[in-house]
Each structure stands twice: as structure tokens, then as C-alpha cells.
């Protein structure tokens, strides 16, 4: 009997319909409620859970009380085991964290959770990548790649995973933006970390594409191509955050900062997890190249999770020394939307907006539009 954990962030998506851009603070939640907002997560959770109902007899569902999962599980037709305690009507991010921890201890094979970027962060903070998870999209902002494309897809993937039809797991980005700043019109996104989600590219993040090669083989090809370019090259290589760029570091046998920026020269590590100032020092008098990948589901190249590579750093290095790496599937998942740059410098954004070459495999490239 497989154990499935279900966590619902009952207020996820509350602010969206009334234009409040999120629901991270209590004030906002109250304001949203006064404006007549209804949370999106209960309905969406039920929709997803219904697709797992067929495996009811082979699945033990563990959830949290009342609106944090119990009600949704019952509505979908499950008889869940309810653990923990909450103050109904006054749930907090800590409840999500405790729930995730307790479910991890109970030995669930998968935590299916409904929420937005904040919810994913809470779960990441609580259990890291210990237990496979999958998000039902219900939040206002979804920059994280741990969410299925639709609630239905979340249900389908969870069902396949519980049946053992999907076995592979993939690391997916947990992103969040500062909601306060977002309300003031400033987007400041951070890459918080990675959760492990079942790999089914058609349903999660890479919604609309599927490759013939496995993700791992493609990554090795991309890394090999970047490294081939390093031969007899005295440049400093500024390696941005992400799992795609990590493949380069791993192939070089170098320690990698998944969420930060590392610097490599002559295939050796020069500095780890550097700041903007450190980068400026390096690029001031030396040739350098920037290796970046697409961060999160939105297609950002600069300005999301890699702010260390600032406008001044980029200008110093020069556009022609930017090496973009990404799988074709990731590009296709953008449905024709351009790769985005939000460097903070309008002039630079404009300069970077053109067709740029993206390394998609060994000796394999795609011309892709960059915009802002």
C-alpha cells in the first residue's frame, strides 16, 4: 500500500482574482477576504484528487485537518487518515511546514500539495528534497517549476507515480518573489532551491514538449559542448545558478553552487558563490564568458535568481561572450514566448533583445529570440 500525503494551502490564490498579487501576509489575506475573494486551492485539489480515486484501494491518504486537506480528500471520495492539528480559519505557513515534516516522518511516497510559490518554499524549508512532491497550481504567482500544468495533470502524474509507472525524479526549481516589492511594481525573484518531482515532461513544466533523449543525456551533451569551448581558452567562465549549469561543473569535476554563481578558469575553480563585486573585480581586467541557463518556468535568462550577474558585469563581459545553455524541451515549453531579460538596466535589456544562439546539445544549437 502506497502512502500519499496531501497538503492544501487553503488561502493560496486568494489575492489573485482581486488583483492583490499574492497572499503572503495576514493583512493581505484579510483585505482579500473583505473584497470577496475565494481561495482557488480547494476546488483545484479536489479536481486533481479525483484522478487518483481509481487507486483508492491501493493508496493510503494522509492529510491535515479541515481545509488543509481533509475536506478536499472527503469531497473527492477518499477516506483519509487525518494527522496534526490546526486552527481552522487561521492557518499559517508554519502549518504547511509542520504538515510536510510529519508526512515525511510517516513515510509517504509522495506529497501532493496545492498552493503557489510560497507554499513550495514552505515545503522546501521543512523537508528539503527528502520526499518526492508535486504541486497542484493554485497560487497567484507560479515561478517555481514544481507545479503541474493543470490540476488534472497533477492528478494524472500522481496516479502514474503511485502505480509505479513513473519512477524517475527530476529536480525542479523553487522560486519566489518578494511580494511586498512585487506589489510596488518591482520583481525580485530568488531561486530558493530544488524539490524532487516525478519526471513526466508532458505534464510538469515542460508542458508541451518531449524529447527523444533523456534529460540526463541531453545535459551531458550540453556540458560537453561548453567544455569543448574552454579548450585553450584563458577566459574566466562565470557559471550561473541552475541544474543545467551544474551539469557543466559536474562534468568538469568541480564543486558547484546550485543556487549561486561560481567562477572557473582553465577548467579549475577560481571562486565559489561569488557576489556582484567579486565578479566586477574579475571581469575588470580579464576576458570572461557568462554561462547562463533559463531559470524557472517563465523563461528568464537574467534578473531571476542570478542577480549577481548584474548589468555592469554583463556589459563588461559583452553580449558576444554570453553562452546560453538550455534543452530544446525547455525552449519549446515557452510556446514561442521569448527568453526574458530583466537586468534592471533598460538599455542593456534592449541591447540583449535579439536572436541569440542557445546551446542545446553537443555541437547542437538553436536560434532563439530574447526579449524583455
Amino acid at each position, binding site marked *: 500500500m502506497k502512502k500519499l500525503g496531501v497538503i492544501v494551502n487553503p488561502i493560496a490564490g486568494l489575492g489573485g482574482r482581486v488583483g492583490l498579487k499574492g497572499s503572503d501576509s495576514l493583512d493581505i489575506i484579510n483585505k482579500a477576504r473583505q473584497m470577496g475573494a475565494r481561495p482557488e486551492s480547494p476546488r483545484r485539489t479536489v479536481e486533481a484528487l479525483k*484522478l487518483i480515486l481509481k487507486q483508492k484501494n491501493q493508496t493510503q491518504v494522509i492529510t491535515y485537518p479541515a481545509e488543509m486537506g481533509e475536506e478536499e480528500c472527503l469531497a473527492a471520495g477518499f477516506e483519509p487518515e487525518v494527522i496534526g492539528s490546526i486552527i481552522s480559519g487561521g492557518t499559517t505557513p508554519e502549518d504547511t511546514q509542520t504538515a510536510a515534516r510529519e508526512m515525511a516522518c510517516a513515510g509517504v511516497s509522495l506529497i501532493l500539495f496545492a498552493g503557489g510559490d510560497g507554499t513550495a518554499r514552505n515545503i522546501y524549508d521543512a523537508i528539503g528534497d527528502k520526499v518526492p512532491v508535486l504541486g497542484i497550481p493554485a497560487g497567484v504567482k507560479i515561478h517555481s517549476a514544481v507545479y503541474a500544468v*493543470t490540476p*488534472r495533470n497533477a492528478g*494524472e502524474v500522481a496516479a*502514474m507515480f503511485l502505480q509505479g*509507472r*513513473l519512477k524517475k525524479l527530476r529536480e525542479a526549481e523553487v522560486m519566489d518573489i518578494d511580494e511586498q516589492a512585487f506589489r510596488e511594481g518591482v520583481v525580485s525573484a530568488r531561486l530558493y532551491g530544488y524539490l524532487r518531482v516525478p519526471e*513526466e515532461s*508532458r505534464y510538469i513544466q515542460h*508542458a*508541451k*514538449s*518531449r*524529447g*527523444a533523449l*533523456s534529460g540526463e543525456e541531453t545535459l551531458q551533451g550540453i556540458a560537453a559542448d561548453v567544455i569543448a569551448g574552454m579548450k585553450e581558452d584563458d577566459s574566466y567562465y562565470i557559471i550561473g545558478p541552475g541544474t543545467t549549469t551544474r551539469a557543466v561543473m559536474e562534468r568538469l569535476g568541480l564543486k558547484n553552487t546550485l543556487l549561486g554563481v561560481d567562477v572557473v578558469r582553465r577548467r579549475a575553480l577560481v571562486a565559489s558563490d561569488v557576489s556582484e563585486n567579486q565578479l566586477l573585480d574579475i571581469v575588470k581586467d580579464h576576458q570572461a564568458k557568462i554561462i547562463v541557463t533559463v531559470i524557472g518556468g517563465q523563461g528568464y535568462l537574467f534578473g531571476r535568481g542570478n542577480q549577481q550577474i548584474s548589468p555592469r558585469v554583463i556589459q563588461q563581459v559583452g553580449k558576444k561572450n554570453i553562452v546560453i545553455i538550455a534543452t*530544446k*524541451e525547455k*525552449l*519549446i515549453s515557452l510556446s*514561442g514566448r521569448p527568453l526574458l531579460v530583466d537586468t534592471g538596466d533598460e538599455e542593456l535589456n534592449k541591447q540583449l533583445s*535579439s*536572436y*541569440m*544562439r542557445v546551446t*542545446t546539445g553537443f*555541437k*547542437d*544549437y*538553436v*536560434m*532563439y*529570440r530574447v526579449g524583455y
Partner: protein
Amino acid sequence: MPRDKETLLRKFHQAKWDEQIIFEMSVPGERGILVPQAGEEISAIIGDGLSVIPDQLRRKTPPALPEVAQARVLRHFMRLSQETMGADVNIDIGEGTCTMKYSPKVQEHLAARHPGMTAIHPLQDDETMQGILEIYYRLEQFLKEISGLDYFCFQPGGGSQAVFLNACLVRAYHADRGDHERDEIITTIFSHPVNAAAPATAGYKVITLMPDENGYPTLEALKEALSERTAGIFITNPEDTGIYNPEIAEFVKAAHDAGALCSYDQANANGLLGVTRAREAGFDLCHFNLHKTFSAPHGCMGPAMGAVGVRSELAGFLPVPRVEFDGQGYYLDYNRPQSIGRVRSFFGNTPLALKTYTWIMQHGAEGLREVAECAVLNNNYMDKKIREIPGVVVYYAKDERRLEQVRYSWEKLKEDTGVDTEDVERRMADYGLQHYFTSHHPQVVPEPFTPEPCDSYSKDDIDEFVAVLRQISREAYEEPDLVKNAPHHSTIHMVQNPLIFELEKIATTWRQAKKKGLV
């Protein structure tokens, strides 16, 4: 009971045999043919025939081949054939880009039974095989006329090898001019993927152009990609979406301006035959899959023939031998010092050249153009009907007419019902149609399917094919599990798709299967 006159649907059930793999049927000592010993007269001249094999090449142990008598072999393969759906059994419209047209049986009879085909050997003296050489020579003249290019080569054993040959010819051309810096090939994502794969095999870096919101590769992206490193552009047009790139002349010009050559993938020329030519489109090289457009037939990985055409500037680099005519007779010319050598032994899959020749002779010039006209008409008739099916969406080039095929999407069906293109594909088998072609990878159009109702199919054939799609769409909305668990009337039931991505569970040979512990 005949096919339902109203719905056009069939009550079909595929044969299902619990057939062993032929290796499992092996009984030691059982034989299909007892090979006769050579008579005294022959032995006196050539000896035992075996001792000429060098020791290093001789097997120490006999190969582990199955030992099965004729009758059992026949039954085995007849049963397997009943468990498949070939072009001769079903309305083979689903296999878009493959051009599964009817191949007249007379061609097969000639190729399989005419002693001029069955009793010749490529090492015979030229004078003793004038017939087949004449067919090669005349076929070359036909294809020159059809494409406008100056020389043809029939050596490649398929379309991929033809594109590989084109990449080798492009390399030889630049090398001959002393230009060794050109190491990049540009293609588009909706060109057949061999336009990326074959140049990559030949050592090139490959740059792919993505479609814009209307499905076209953009000239701006091409110009950004072109440089003094570009050896050539390798593209299909119309692309696999059935959309003809209206800027093709500008593409070719931009490539030529950058010093690159242009290679036209015309593997499937069914929308263009007798209408447009590679020469007028400005291309330097092209290839035809004789087993697609020219009905040789398309054999699902079977023997094939990719005919490569080039302008005269590239003729010197073509493979040897070439079939030439000296005014009296036909001969094989090996004396071509600039030739890249060979891509295949002797002169390719001879029966396909014969079948193509026969097919062209049956049609004549006007007939070839009519083939293209019928193919495009059929496609546009079917396109109108398929667009009316609930759940179908068509991406790109709104209100533009498609040529010989269309890439459709079941994206809406999936959103509405959870039934995806693979579910529909499997359900097709329950109505006596073989699974259809979705698209090449990576799938840019979500939940794709790409049918191609080429010249051979009647209105009734197309109506039946569409009726099945419409029926499956209805089932998806009313009873999605019926479709998701399909097929129900077939040889094997649902194969879970993610499973086939587990390499350790795939074996393409008996030896591999044993090694991986799968049997």
C-alpha cells in the same frame, strides 16, 4: 457483416497469436533447406569453396541461428503478418510525412520475378547487364527533368543516407575551394530531423531555427545564424507541418550571400511534383525518397533509395560508380578523381530504381503533376473535415492553405477529456486502422498527429479515416476510459508508454534480450 453504411465504421478484430519468438521455436537439427553439395564438375574447378576463407574470418563456433523447418517458418511469419497492419491492409493515411501511397503490384512482380533483376550480380561485366544500367541512366534523366538539377546519384540506401551524402558533398565542395572554416549547418525545427542528424553525423555543428507564432522560421533568425562558418542550409519545404515557406527565395539568397550551399529535402515531394523544381527555387542540392513520392514503396525500415541531385558544380564529388552512356552502350564509370568515394556498396538497392522507373513510365509527365494535384486536393478535403472534429486544434498559418499534409493537435481534447494523442492513436487499431504518426521529437506542437492522404486514396477512404477520428473524439468526451485503455480489439493491449523509455527493458536482438535477462 459489411462496413456500416451510415457511420463508415468497421467491426474489426485483429488476429492474436500467442506466437513464440523464432529463436524459441528452434529444434536442434531441424532444417528448412538441405543445401546440396557442389557436383564433381564444379568442385574440380573451384575446390571445396570453403578453404579459400581465411582462418581469421572463419567462425570457431557456428552462429546461434534458429533451426526451424519451412512449414513452421511460413506459419510463423504469416501469423506475425496477421498481427500487423500494413499499407496493403488498412487505409494508410495516418503515416504522414511517409507518403504511404499505393504501389502497383506489377512493380513488385517485375522486381521479384524478372530474371533480369533476380539473376544479376553487381560484379558482372557491364555488357551483360545493359538493361538495369539503361534503367538507371534513363531514371537519372527523368529526375533531372523533375528537379531541374544536373546530376543524380542512386547509391544512398534511404533518405537519411541521402542527406548524409549531401552533407559530404557540401564539405567536399568547400574543401575543394580551400575553405576549411565552414563547420556549421543551419536547419529548421519543422524540417525532417535528419537535416540536423545527418550533417551532425558528418561532423558538422547544427543550428536550428524555431518557428515564429505563424509557424514559419524567420529570415531574421536565419541572418543572425549565418556567418563565414556556415557550410550550408538543409531544409524541407513545405515543412512537416504542410506549410510552404513563402520566403524561401530570400532564405536561399541570404545563404548564398554568406557563401553557403542550399540543400533541399524533397524526400516527400508529393505536394510539388511537376509544379515546382529545386533549380528554380535556387537550391544547389536536393534528394528524393524514391520509396515515398515515387511509390517504390515505403517499406518501414526496409530497403529504400534516396536519390541525390546536384548542380553541375558539385558533380565531380558524387560517389562512384556512375552509370554513363557512350552512345553505344551503358557502362559503370569509376574514374572520377574528385569523388567522395562511396556511401554504399555497388549501386544501391536496384529493385527500387526499377520500381520508380516503372511508376514514372506509367504516369508520364502529366500524370506526375496530377499526383501532386490529387495529393493536395485530398489533403485540403480532409483538412476541412478534421478541423470540424471536437477537440482538434490547428496551430500556425491561419487561413493559409496547406499542401500535402497538416500537423494537427489534440491539445483541446486533452484539456477537455484527459485523452491524449497516444490514446487516440492506440484506439485507431480497434477500427482497423494502424496507429498514426504523431510528430518527430521534440514535439513542438502539443499532442500532435500528422496524417497524409496522398494521391492514392479515394474520397471514401478519406471519409472512413475521418469517421474513425470523429468517433474516437466522441468516445473521448463520453467515455474517456474506453479510449485511454485502448486498444481492445488488437494483438497486444495497452503498452504503458513510459516503460519504453527504460533502456534496460529494451532489447532489439535475441542476444541482447538474453543478456539483459528479459527472456
